[in-house]
């Protein structure tokens, strides 16, 4: 039982990281109707900048603070130089172009920082464990990620539901031409939304830095999960991204943790372990298939005008 709660927390933490990634991606898709495979590159840029700044200044917080504008500006630059030319193109063209961006950023990172994976450690005051549940110490840093993610979620909700910018973003998601006709500077709005998405990805990368290897190509492994999340949640919906991310995080973690044990009830141990491991890596895709079978446009579909 103890273990179950601990794994729930682990799942929650993975879900929160995924939420930071997918919120940005789903906004970009919802407002601009662009499939951006290079979203993982902003995650990587965030992690690299955080690691570099933290190494030079000795402060992790400073590293994260530097990563936000770095990733955001990179995103805005990419929007202005590349993405802007893709709005009216086919989705296939967008996939091709942004896939090219992935290769470009991975190579750029190798040129600038070299092949050596960077070192980024947990800040001292977060390096211990907390006994949230007696008998199951939990890394404080992972708790901090959960808290940070929840705060970002609230801020994002406030931004989208309560501010003028958010109103425009919502309007842009349902009918971009109409918003333009009403005199809103669409070009600026697009750049801002794209920058916001990149900034969130950069934050996810900077926060993941102390847990993961900061290396070229680190964005791709999380990008796949991110796409699963936004498909489950409904493309374009931030609320969907939140629910989808938590679902994927929980299913993935709990599947890895408990499927082998569950199968042992019916199968011999060796077979159960083998099948459990395979099934666990499929679990989120099975979840996605199940969701799409019932709700073809995801849990929270966004209607386009």
């Amino acid at each position: 039982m103890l273990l179950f709660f601990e794994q729930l927390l682990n799942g929650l933490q993975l879900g929160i990281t995924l939420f930071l990634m997918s919120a940005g991606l789903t906004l970009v898709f919802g407002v601009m109707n662009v499939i951006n495979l290079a979203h993982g590159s902003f995650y990587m840029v965030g992690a690299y900048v955080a690691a570099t700044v933290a190494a030079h200044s000795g402060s992790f917080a400073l590293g994260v603070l530097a990563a936000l504008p770095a990733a955001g500006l990179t995103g805005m630059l990419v929007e202005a130089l590349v993405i802007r030319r893709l709005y009216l193109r086919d989705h296939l063209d967008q996939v091709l172009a942004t896939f090219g961006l992935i290769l470009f950023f991975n190579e750029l990172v190798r040129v600038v920082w070299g092949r050596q994976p960077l070192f980024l450690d947990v800040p001292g005051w977060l390096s211990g464990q907390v006994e949230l549940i007696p008998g199951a110490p939990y890394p404080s840093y992972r708790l901090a990620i959960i808290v940070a993610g929840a705060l970002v979620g609230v801020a994002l909700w406030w931004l989208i539901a309560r501010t003028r910018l958010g109103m425009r973003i919502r309007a842009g998601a349902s009918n971009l031409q109409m918003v333009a006709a009403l005199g809103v500077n669409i070009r600026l709005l697009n750049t801002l939304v794209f920058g916001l998405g990149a900034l969130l990805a950069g934050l996810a990368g900077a926060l993941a830095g102390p847990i993961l290897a900061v290396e070229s190509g680190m964005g791709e492994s999380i990008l796949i999960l991110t796409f699963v999340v936004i498909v489950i949640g409904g493309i374009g919906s931030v609320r969907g991204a939140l629910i989808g991310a938590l679902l994927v995080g929980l299913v993935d973690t709990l599947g890895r943790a408990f499927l082998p044990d569950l199968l042992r009830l019916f199968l011999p141990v060796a077979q159960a372990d083998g099948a459990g491991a395979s099934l666990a890596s499929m679990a989120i895709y099975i979840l996605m298939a199940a969701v799409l079978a019932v709700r073809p446009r995801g849990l929270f579909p966004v209607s386009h005008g």
Partner: protein
Amino acid sequence: MINKTIAVAAAALLLGAAQQPVALAAEPVRIGMLTTLSTKAGYLGEDIRDGFMLAVEAEGGKLGGVPVEVSVEDDERKPGKGVSIAERYLKRDGAKILTGIVFSNVAMAVVPKVVREDAIYISPNAGPSRLAGKGCHANYFNVAWQNDNLHEVMGKYVSEAGHQRAYILAPNYPAGKDALAGFKRYFKGELAGEVYTKLGQSDYAAEIAELRAARPDAVFFFLPGGMGINFLKQYAQAGVDVPVFGPAFSFDARILKAVGDAAVGVHNGSQWNHDLVVPANVQFVHDFREKYGRMPTLYASQGYDAARLIASALKATGGVDDLDALRAALKRADFESVRGRFAFGNNQHPVQDIYVRRVVKDDEGIRNETVNRVFEAHRDAYAADCKL
């Protein structure tokens, strides 16, 4: 008049005949290196190449006194790409010696082709079991290890250190299964758990929680590259105080720099370390650091040894024209390996000592320190299946 003409012609012929060997000797021996230079794993190929070239440049572009020309190409970790590069080396360049492959799946695609074409392949890294056992070949030499070796040594060491319950963990792919099989071959205790994770997995929180609940007294993992960095960082943050063991692959100089303090105290198995007191090794480590400004990894040491092995054979044969002589000379392994004693077994894989190292932190940073020699003149488990 006719006599004179004949005399001139004969003289010309004689001259030509005399010149021919000279001309041949001036033509350098071509060596084709195909290795992984791109992708996340690119540093492995980079180190193999740099180690190899260090030996070539130390002799001023020669190996064993014979001029060589080394071409290097990136296989991008793709078997198909590896095969096409190898074909180019063999057909276009007429190379008789190939080397460089990092990954077993690339080796399995390339090596059988190369050896069938009457060319020599010298492996500086990958050692899949097939090529050590039933699939061994007179033209294939492995100068690094058989894949299982560095796991076997940890199985023996963990047992000898008195641990009874091990929790073992590897990615769910052939090399991961081989790794755990190698560990289990020499581990005498019971298993608290045997877990196969997704290849390329980045978050290990679930596995670490399971591991703690299983109460093992030792953890053995094989998670190459970034996966190992992730696991070690997360393991340290989780505050589990069960000792960790692994093969050298997760503890080379570059990975240690990225993991930091989280790796300190971990024991790992390796056939080489920078602190082995062997004259060839002292020289190698010194020269490598001077030339490239970084610590060599075990991959660099293997690249260096591959070049020195080729040098020893070329010194004996003077070239690659007589393949039988070249094979015989390679098999003698008449060179000073950076790991000390080195010989080839019947399957032309190393018979060598294997060590356990411990990660320590001192003024020089975080590095490996040799603890002791666990295997003496260790032979791989597949040699008996080889008909050579």
